[in-house]
């Protein structure tokens, strides 16, 4: 695969993620209403449906708390990954790995 193919494939994936998927950019732009569950825009302070106060944290903060994410581009990576498959950043070790190394 040529450099052009790789670049455009990656670019297309990012557009598709923004359109349908749950890439970091989509998640960073959404806040979930704790009362009714509606997805609101990140800069909203009140839910557009029920008017309840929205939390400070976005959907991405919740996602980060549940997944290991790349510090470079923000996508979720597996626990065993050493490099990010999306942007190639070297990933910091997980807590589990550190514990193993200490033992």
């Amino acid at each position, binding site marked *: 695969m040529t450099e*052009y193919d790789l670049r*455009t494939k990656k*670019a*297309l994936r*990012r*557009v*598709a993620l*923004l*359109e*349908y998927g749950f890439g970091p*950019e*989509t998640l960073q*732009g959404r806040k979930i209403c704790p009362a009714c569950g509606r997805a609101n825009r990140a800069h909203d302070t009140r839910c557009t449906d029920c008017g309840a106060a929205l939390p400070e944290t976005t959907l991405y903060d919740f996602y980060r708390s549940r997944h290991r994410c790349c510090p470079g581009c923000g996508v979720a990576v597996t626990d065993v990954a050493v490099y990010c498959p999306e942007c190639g950043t070297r990933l910091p070790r997980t807590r589990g790995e550190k514990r193993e190394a200490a033992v």
Partner: protein
Amino acid sequence: MSLFRKREAAAQMEGEGNLPKAAACFATPARTRRAADWLGELGGCKPLGILSDDCSDVVWQCVAEKADLLLLETDFSTGTEDTKDVSARCDVAVEVRRQRPECRVYLVCAAGHPEKLPALDKAVELKLIHGYFIGDLTARQMRAWIAETSEAMGRQERRQRDLRKGEQP
């Protein structure tokens, strides 16, 4: 005279040989025909309707007809069998520009889909497409896109001329 004579022959006779070729591929063949007629009435370009919506057909026709500008319409209605969403249209744009890098691609999207805006903005940012318009395409916007295309064509012509000059001893 044949009924199927090529449209650009008449245009060239009027001294409009350097006008950009604008290909339109809308959601349905009827809409494509209407868009091509509208472009013809607008002037400043040589219109071309691409009736088939298939990616390879669009690419083939753009290359064969040497299109300088491609207008693609998206369709966000859920009932459509084949997808004409932003990512699918970007796919077509990428393929067209792989074969014909000088072709500029613009998306025309229906209004009332704010959730598509981040994807559209990203597609422009990543240079998959050159621009997009939401709602019924206005003559002003189309003229701006035609002007951009003509400018890009002029730049390329000058570059090629300079290259040719450089090659001459």
